[in-house]
């Protein structure tokens, strides 16, 4: 099987997460209000947080299974992860940030790989600049380049575009679609932005209060919400946009 299967239970400060879903080689969007457990799910996939119960499988390898006691540490999961605040290292240049992501790559191959990422993400001329010296959109691209240089089997994005203004967001969505084609890996994107969910997703996974309320293609979820909670969440009229 190619793709990602996730089954997680976690109790955290009175919040209960109980989510189960599976995706193939596609862009899956975890969609829901803030605090519904989307980011928590992503952190558990990345190994930054441990679930109380459940399992996580990527392709045919198990990276977490509470029953058999498997819990591969974050350092050895080799997943691409882009943080909401991007988490670029402020003391490293663009090129050093990307290089830091190339852990495990032979020294001789590194310059070539970095050059390749710089080309793909249009970062020419910025290699020696520090994160504080480049624009928001450029930072996004550095974060993506750093996360992808090792060719991870999965890319996780935690609301990475939320701080951008609209034209830039459109551009980044386009870029993400290109990434999907170039790297051919499943992408999990967390968002509470309805437009982003609708335009980006092959599959939408709707989170409501720590549970998966509905899973399906955007048109299925938006046209046939399973219950009132999902209905309220996908009610496009509230956002002043034309219903899909």
């Amino acid at each position, binding site marked *: 099987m190619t793709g990602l299967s996730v089954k997680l239970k976690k109790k955290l400060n009175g919040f209960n997460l109980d989510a189960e879903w599976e995706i193939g080689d596609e862009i899956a969007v975890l969609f829901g209000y803030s605090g519904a457990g989307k980011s928590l799910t992503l952190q558990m996939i*990345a*190994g*930054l947080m441990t679930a109380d119960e459940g399992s996580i499988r990527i392709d045919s390898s198990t990276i977490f299974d509470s029953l058999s006691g498997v819990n591969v*540490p*974050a*350092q*050895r*999961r*080799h*997943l*691409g*992860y882009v*943080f909401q*605040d991007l*988490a670029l*290292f*402020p*003391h490293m240049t663009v090129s050093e940030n990307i290089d*830091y*992501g190339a*852990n*495990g790559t032979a020294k001789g191959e590194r310059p070539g790989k970095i050059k390749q990422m710089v080309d793909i993400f249009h970062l020419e001329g910025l290699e020696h600049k520090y994160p504080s010296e480049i624009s928001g959109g450029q930072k996004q691209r550095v974060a993506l380049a*750093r*996360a992808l240089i*090792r060719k991870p089997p999965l890319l996780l994005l935690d609301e990475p575009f939320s701080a951008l203004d609209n034209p830039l967001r459109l551009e980044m969505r386009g870029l993400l679609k290109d990434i999907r084609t170039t790297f051919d890996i499943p992408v999990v994107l967390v968002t509470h932005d309805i437009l982003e969910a609708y335009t980006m997703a092959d599959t939408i996974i709707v989170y409501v209060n720590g549970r998966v309320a509905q899973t399906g293609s955007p048109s299925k979820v938006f046209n046939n919400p399973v219950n009132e909670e999902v209905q309220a969440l996908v009610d496009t009229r509230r956002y002043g946009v034309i219903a899909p």
Partner: protein
Amino acid sequence: MRLSLQVATVATVFIVVIGLTAAYLLAQKEFRGKEVLDIALTLPLVLPPTVTGYYLIILFGRNGLIGRFIYEWTGWTIMFTWYAAALASFVVALPLMVKTARAAIESVDKNLINASYTLGHSEFVTALKVILPLAKRGIMAGAVLSFARALGEFGATLMLAGNIPGRTDTMPIAIYSLAGSGEWTKANSMVVLLTLMSALFLYFANRYSKRII
């Protein structure tokens, strides 16, 4: 003065190595006895230096808990040597390093540390390449403060190293002796020198701690 610098430098080298390790553990790890360790390392900051010196005698004196073994094996005791002055300065100045470095390490964005982990880097590499460079200013400030404190250490040093001319009379101790015997001219110049040096170190400590990336 040369003795003072020698004592303070040796003390600071140990402070940086041991203080930084302790600060990292206190900032990043959860373990049993963490609070006790924190308190034990901070106590010399608030205890009268004579009390700290007293503890050091109990530990390292010729009949002390540790000193006894050293004396039995080697016939040597640290008491009344310049090593004792360095040890006293180390213990008294260590809290300044631990406190300052711990705060600096704790202020490093947790997401940056997590980012390093998701990029496949071990805790050691993360500490070396991400945490320490980002906490650098605080660590430098801690080291400079500790050095200044070590340079001015008096009470514990007097208890442990005594006042032996040419061997353990660091500047503060020499000033005490000079004032006692009425040699005001010499005392004045030493006091001015020590004040100026300490002020200079504080200036550097401030500069380091302000310019955070």
